[in-house]
C-alpha cells in the first residue's frame, strides 16, 4: 500500500530569527550577555565620538571668515574651516599662477580621457592604450605644465603625443560603435579589406604620417607661458611625483626582478644587492641622499634641480619595492609555463615577454595598485626636504598671517582627502582582485 500525497506540503517560512530585523539584531548584537555589554559600550563610544566630531566640525564650525580671529569671534570650540577654504587653490595647485590653472586641469582631463578606453570593454588594443599613456603622455603633460620654448625634440614628441591621443580617442569611439579597432574600421569603411596586407599597412602609415604633419604644424602655432617648477605645489605636485614614480618604477621593477631571478650570477648578485640596499633603508634617508649627495655625484657645473633629484630618488626607491611585487608575481607562475615556452622554441625574451609577463602582470595588478597607494602616501615625505607638496602647503597655512597657528583643520582636511583617494583605490584593487581571480582557472 502506498501513501500518495495529493497536495504538496507548503514550505515553512524561515524562522523569525533569520528574517526579521529583531532576529538579526539578536543574532549579531545581543547573542550573549557579554555581546550585549560590548554592543552597548561600543554604541556609547561611537555616539560620543561622532557627536563630538559633529559639534566641532559642523555646528560650532566657521566656514566663512577672513582671519582666524574672526573664527574665534564666531565660536571658540568649533573648527575654523574658513582658513582651509581660503587656501583651497594653494592646497590643490601650490603657487602655480592662478590664470594658468586651466593647464593643470586640462592635463588631468587629458589623462582621464586617454586612460578611459582601458575601462571600456568594447574598446580594442588596451595594451597599446596603456603603452601610449606611458610613452607619450608625459611629454605632452610636461610641456603643458612647465611651458616655455619648445625644442625640436619636444616639438616632435608633442606632435606624436597629439597623434597618439587622437588615434586613441577615435579607436575608443570605433570600439564603442562597431567593436572594431580604428585600423579595421578605416580599412573596411574605405573598402580596402581585400587589399594585400602590405598595402593596408602602407595606407595606415600614410594616414598617421599626414596626421603627424598636421599636428606638427598646429602645435608650432602656439606656446604656453613658462612656469618654473618652484611654483608647482600642492596635490598637483604630489600627483606628478607619484605618477612619474609609478610609471617608471614598474619597468624598473620588472628589469630588477628579472635580474634577480636570472641564471647569470653577476646579474643576480647586482640586482639582489641593489634591491636589498634600497629596501632596507627608510625613504627619507634616500631623499636626503638625493639632495645632499647627488650634487656631488654629478660632473662639476652640472646642476640638477631639486624636483628632479627627488623624482630620481622616489623612482629608485619604488623600483626596488616594485621588483619584489613583480618577483612574487613571477613566482606564482607554474614551472610548466616556462618549460612549455622553451619547448616551442622561444628564447629568454620571447618566453618572458609573450608567455610569462602577461600572466604575471595580470596577477600583480591588485598589488601594483597597492604599491601606488603606498607611493602616494609616501610622497608626503618630500615636504620634509622642503618641497611644497600637499602636506607642505597644509602646514604653511599656519604660517600665513591671517591664519596664524591654524594647524589642526588643514591636517584633518588633508587626512580626509588622502583617505578618500586611497580608500577608493584600495576598494577598486580589491574589486579587481575578485574580478581577475573569477576569470582565471585556479
Amino acid at each position, binding site marked *: 500500500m502506498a501513501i500518495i500525497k495529493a497536495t504538496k506540503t507548503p514550505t515553512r517560512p524561515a524562522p523569525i530569527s533569520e528574517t526579521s530585523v529583531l532576529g538579526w539584531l539578536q543574532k*549579531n548584537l545581543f547573542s550573549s550577555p557579554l555581546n550585549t555589554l560590548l554592543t552597548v559600550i561600543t554604541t556609547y563610544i561611537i555616539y560620543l565620538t561622532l557627536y563630538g566630531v559633529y559639534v566641532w566640525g559642523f555646528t560650532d564650525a566657521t566656514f566663512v571668515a577672513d582671519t582666524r580671529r574672526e573664527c574665534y569671534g564666531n565660536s571658540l570650540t568649533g573648527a575654523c574651516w574658513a582658513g582651509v577654504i581660503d587656501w583651497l587653490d594653494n592646497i590643490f595647485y601650490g603657487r602655480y599662477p592662478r590664470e594658468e590653472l586651466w593647464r593643470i586641469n586640462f592635463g588631468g582631463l587629458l589623462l582621464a580621457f586617454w586612460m578611459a578606453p582601458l575601462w571600456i570593454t568594447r574598446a580594442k588594443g588596451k595594451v597599446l592604450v596603456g603603452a601610449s599613456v606611458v610613452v607619450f603622455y608625459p611629454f605632452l603633460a610636461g610641456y603643458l605644465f612647465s611651458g616655455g620654448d619648445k625644442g625640436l625634440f619636444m616639438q616632435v614628441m608633442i606632435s606624436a603625443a597629439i597623434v597618439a591621443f587622437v588615434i586613441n580617442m577615435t579607436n575608443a569611439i570605433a570600439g564603442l560603435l562597431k567593436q572594431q579597432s580604428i585600423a579595421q574600421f578605416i580599412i573596411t569603411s574605405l573598402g580596402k579589406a581585400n587589399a594585400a596586407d602590405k598595402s593596408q599597412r602602407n595606407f595606415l602609415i600614410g594616414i598617421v604620417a599626414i596626421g603627424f604633419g598636421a599636428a606638427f604644424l598646429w602645435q608650432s602655432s602656439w606656446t604656453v607661458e613658462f612656469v618654473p617648477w618652484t611654483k608647482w605645489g600642492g596635490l598637483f605636485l604630489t600627483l606628478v611625483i607619484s605618477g612619474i614614480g609609478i610609471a617608471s618604477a614598474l619597468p624598473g621593477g620588472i628589469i630588477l626582478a628579472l635580474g634577480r631571478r636570472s641564471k*647569470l650570477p653577476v646579474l643576480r648578485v647586482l640586482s639582489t644587492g641593489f634591491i636589498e640596499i634600497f629596501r632596507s633603508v627608510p625613504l627619507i634617508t634616500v631623499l636626503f641622499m638625493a639632495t645632499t649627495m647627488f650634487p656631488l655625484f654629478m660632473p662639476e657645473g652640472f646642476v640638477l634641480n631639486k624636483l628632479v633629484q627627488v623624482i630620481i630618488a622616489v623612482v629608485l626607491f619604488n623600483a626596488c619595492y616594485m621588483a619584489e611585487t613583480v618577483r612574487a608575481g613571477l613566482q606564482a607562475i607554474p614551472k610548466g609555463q616556462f618549460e612549455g615556452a622553451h619547448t616551442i622554441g622561444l628564447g629568454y625574451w620571447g618566453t618572458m615577454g609573450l608567455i610569462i609577463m602577461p600572466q604575471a602582470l595580470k596577477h600583480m595588478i591588485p598589488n601594483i595598485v597597492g604599491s601606488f597607494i603606498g607611493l602616494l602616501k609616501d610622497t608626503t615625505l618630500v615636504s620634509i626636504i622642503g618641497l611644497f607638496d600637499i602636506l607642505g602647503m597644509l602646514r604653511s597655512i599656519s604660517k600665513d598671517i591671517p591664519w596664524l597657528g591654524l594647524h589642526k583643520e588643514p591636517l584633518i582636511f588633508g587626512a580626509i582627502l588622502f583617505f578618500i583617494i586611497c580608500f577608493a583605490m584600495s576598494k577598486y584593487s580589491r574589486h579587481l582582485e575578485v574580478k581577475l581571480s573569477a576569470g582565471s582557472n585556479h
Partner: protein
Amino acid sequence: MTDITDRKAEVRVRPKEEFNFFQDQRVRSAFYQILTAGLVGWMVWYLISNTAHNLEVRGMNTGFSFINATAGFDTDFKLVEYKPGVGTYGDIFIIGALNTLLISFLAIIVSTVLGFLIGVLRLSSNWLVSKVALAYVEVFRNIPLLIQIVFWYIGVFSLLPVVKKSLDLSFGAERVILNNRGLYFATPIPGDLFWMTLVALAMAVIGAIIYRRRAHKRQDASGEQTKTLLPSLAAIIFLPLIVFFATGMPLEWDIPTLQGFNFEGGTSVPPAFLALLVALSIYHAAHIAESVRAGILSVNRGQSDAAMAIGLKSGKVMGLVIIPQAMPAIVPPLISNWMNTVKNSSLAIAIGYSDIVSLFMQTALNQAGYAVEMVGMTMAFYMFISLTISFFLNIYNKRVQLVER
C-alpha cells in the same frame, strides 16, 4: 669490457656540434655578465671620481676623523651621558641610534598588542564591534603616516596644558605628569638589598615554569588537568613582595617636582616622543590587525569545527588550535611590519624627535658637513637592523617549515 670500449668509440665518433661563437650559450652568458659588470663598474667609478673631484673643488673634508671631534650642540632627549662641547660626533651617532631603537621597540610592542586585539575584534561575532575594528583599520591605513605624526604632535601633544596646569595621570599622587613639555614620571631608585627582591622574582618565575611543565606532563600521562595560572601568578606576585617587605622596602622614588618653570627629577620624555610613539603604534596596529585577520582566516574552518566537536571551549579552540596554525601565516608579515616600524620611525625628523636621521643625518651633517660618510653611516645602521631582523625571520621560517613536513 667490450661494451665499454664500444661506448668510448661511439663518443669519439659522435659528430661535434657546430660551434657557433655568437649562438653559444656560455659565450653569450659570459658576454652579458661582463657587459653588465663593466657598465656598473664604469658607473660606480664615474660617480666616485666625480664625487672625489667635487669634494676637492669645494674643499670639503673627508674621512672618518669627525667621529672623534667634539660636537657643539645638545639634544633634548638622550639615553646616555652627553655634554655639548665635550661629547663627540660618535656619541651623537650612538644617541641617535639608541633613540631610534627605543622608539621603535616601544612602538613595536604597543602596535603588536593593539594589532592582535583589533585583528581578533575584526572577526568578532558582534557585528558592531567588527565594523568598528574595520573602520579603525581602513581609516588609519589610508592616511599617510606623516600626516598622522604631525597631527598628533601639533594637534594633540602641543596643545596640552602648560606646566602650571599639568595633568596628573596618577590620580593625585603626582607620580605621572603630562603637560605640553612632555610626560614626567617618577623613577625608582633601588636601595641596598633590592637585589634580593629581584632574586625572589626570578625564583618565582623559574618555579612557575617548572610547575607548568610538570602539570603538562601529568596531563599527558593521566589526562588530569591542573590549574597552573592562579598558583603561578600568586607565586610571582607574592614571593617578591614578601621579600621586598622583609628587607625593609629598599626602594625610593625620584619624583618629578615643580621647580620654577619646569619639573625636575624623575624621567621625562618630550612631546615629540609621545606623538611619534602614538602615531607609529596606531598606524602599524592597523596593518598588523589586517595580517592577523588574514592569518586566522587562512586556517581551515574545519579545524575550528573539529575542535568544537571534541568539546573544547571557544577560548581553547582559539588558543590551542587556531592561533598555533595561524602563526606561520601571521609571523612573516608581522616581522616585515616591525621592520617598517623601525624605518618609519625616521619620520621623527618632521617633528624634531632626535632619532638617528634628524640628529645625525641632519643636525650633525649641517654642523660638520661630512655628507657622504654621515649618510653612509645612517644607511648602514638601518641596513644592519633590517638584515638582523630578516636573519631571525629566516630562522623562524625554517623552523616552521620543519614542523610542517
